[in-house]
């Protein structure tokens, strides 16, 4: 990583830290979602963008994280700083479980399994009334604490989400430049060859899924606290579709792509105003257009433009 990149990143974080002073409550609300979505999509990008494995189940992990926190609050009465790592651990385990079929499958087969998993999670959340609260969900009434401060305002959650997002991006940057990241890319580019040169593909795939889902789980726990509760309809297949759209539009397999995509596709629908009902329709069209004419996303376009200049 070049020093000027580090400087730019520090500048971006500083600007983001000031944002709540500029924007009102509504703006901050949207920015929190941008931060959480950035974290979740960056995680998804590890699996799809780097390891080349399709997953339409990222919203399911987001849900498992949020529900783990909510259920622990209800049954154990534990606080946020216990529930957050617990949510990450539980989602990480579920991610590794989903990766078991992924070890033998790729492409559309894997896409189907992840959609099936997403659907199963949604059905369990909405129908297991005794454990998950069914359609009406669960509430998290006790806010998170931070060194004695009760985090009950949206601005508090903004900084929590910012910290999480920065941490996730640092971990992601570290992972993709590590040996593990190069193993993922080798699997994506040619799995047979990767295995032939001695890359432990099983371990690499498992860790990609576990890391992506643990990140989604952490974001889900923060989301649950911020919304003061969870309902199954927060975590439908549509949310998974949105995460995939963000990744594709930004550019999969790039570090900046998920950030761009999450920011663009979270903020753009808010600009639709009275046309807000067209949001999912718009996402669908965006996916089709991106897949047909812009498979590399915005980052791919950027690279192409820079390439043609030279």
């Amino acid at each position, binding site marked *: 990583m070049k020093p000027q990149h580090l400087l730019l990143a520090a500048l971006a974080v500083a600007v983001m830290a000031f944002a709540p002073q500029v924007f009102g409550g509504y703006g901050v609300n949207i920015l929190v979602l941008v931060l959480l979505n950035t974290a979740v999509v960056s995680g998804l990008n590890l699996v799809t963008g780097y390891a080349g494995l*399709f997953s339409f189940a990222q919203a399911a992990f987001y849900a498992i994280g949020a529900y783990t926190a909510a259920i622990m609050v209800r049954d154990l009465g534990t606080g946020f700083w216990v529930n957050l790592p617990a949510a990450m651990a539980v989602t990480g385990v579920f991610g590794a479980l989903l990766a078991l079929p992924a070890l033998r499958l790729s*492409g559309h087969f894997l896409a189907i399994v992840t959609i099936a998993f997403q659907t199963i999670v949604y059905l369990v959340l909405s129908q297991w009334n005794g454990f998950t609260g069914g359609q009406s969900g669960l509430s998290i009434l006790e806010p998170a604490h931070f060194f004695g401060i009760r985090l009950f305002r949206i601005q508090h959650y903004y900084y929590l989400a910012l910290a999480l997002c920065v941490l996730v991006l640092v971990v992601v940057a570290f992972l993709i430049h590590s040996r593990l990241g190069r193993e993922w890319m080798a699997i994506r580019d040619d799995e047979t060859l990767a295995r032939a040169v001695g890359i432990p593909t099983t371990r690499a795939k498992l860790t990609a899924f576990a890391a992506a889902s643990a990140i989604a789980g952490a974001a889900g726990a923060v989301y649950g606290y911020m919304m003061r509760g969870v309902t199954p309809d927060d975590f439908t297949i549509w949310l998974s579709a949105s995460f995939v759209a963000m990744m594709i539009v930004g550019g999969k397999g790039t570090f900046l792509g998920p950030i761009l995509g999450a920011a663009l596709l979270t903020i753009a629908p808010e600009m639709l105003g009275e046309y807000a009902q067209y949001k999912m329709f718009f996402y*669908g069209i*965006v*996916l089709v257009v991106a*897949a047909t004419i812009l*498979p590399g996303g915005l980052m791919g376009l950027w690279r192409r433009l820079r390439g043609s200049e030279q």
Partner: protein
Amino acid sequence: MDLFLQYLANGVVIGSSYVLVAVGLTLIFGILGVVNFAHGEFYMLGGYIGVTAVTIMGLPLLAALPLVIASAVVIGYLAERLLHKALKDSDPTNSIIASFGLAVAIQNAVLITLGPQAQMANIDVSALNLSVGSVYLPGNRVLVPIVTALLIAGLYAVLHFTWTGRSLRAMAQHGMVARLCGVRVERVAIVTFIAAAALAGTAGMLMSSVYSVHPMAGNMVVLKAFTVVILGGMGNIGGAAAAGLILGITETMTAAYLANAMRDIVGFVIVILVLLFLPNGLFGKAYDRS
């Protein structure tokens, strides 16, 4: 035992609708290699055409069949342009994203224009009511397996005894060689999509009198159809027909004897297990998945 037979009959009715959707899905995959996540939308649109024909135009249900086929020609053609022709030279995973996006777009277009409320076609086909021993099936349900059997038999005949069918099968075996032998690949692709859309649309139309139709109806159906396609072996039409009935019956039995809430989950659990242990499906021949 009496109830068991009744459940079995209900399972066959529901399974038949899965067969119609899944056979088209497996055709598109087997012949063109496209994984069409928008396939459930063909079903959903067929359902709305059924409701419109019966409730608004006052036609008998089967009179909606020409309408379904006409719309399948349009939708199938457009879907082929978008999901197959436009993506032919790109990474195959792009068709997964594109068809998923198409499904999202169609569902939400319908949601915006027709609203979220579920609708149902109330038809009177009591002439077909079936009562054998303790098993009773109302006419609208009897219609489903009958039409399914006719369509599958028709499809089989077309595939085996016409030149169009032969070129479809040639494409399924080897696209490049088929092209060299003079198969018009473009036309085959369009015919495949239109036929698949018509089959799924017919299923939606028939089921619009059994279940209500809503904009998201295709979601669950396409997942069920994928379950069936995987159980039957990707690209295997006979396998899809058998697996569709098996899934329908399994679901009905699960709902009856275990718990109604488990009904939709059981299929997905089965599909994950099958992919883990029998990746070529229950009836699959060894199939190259690379």
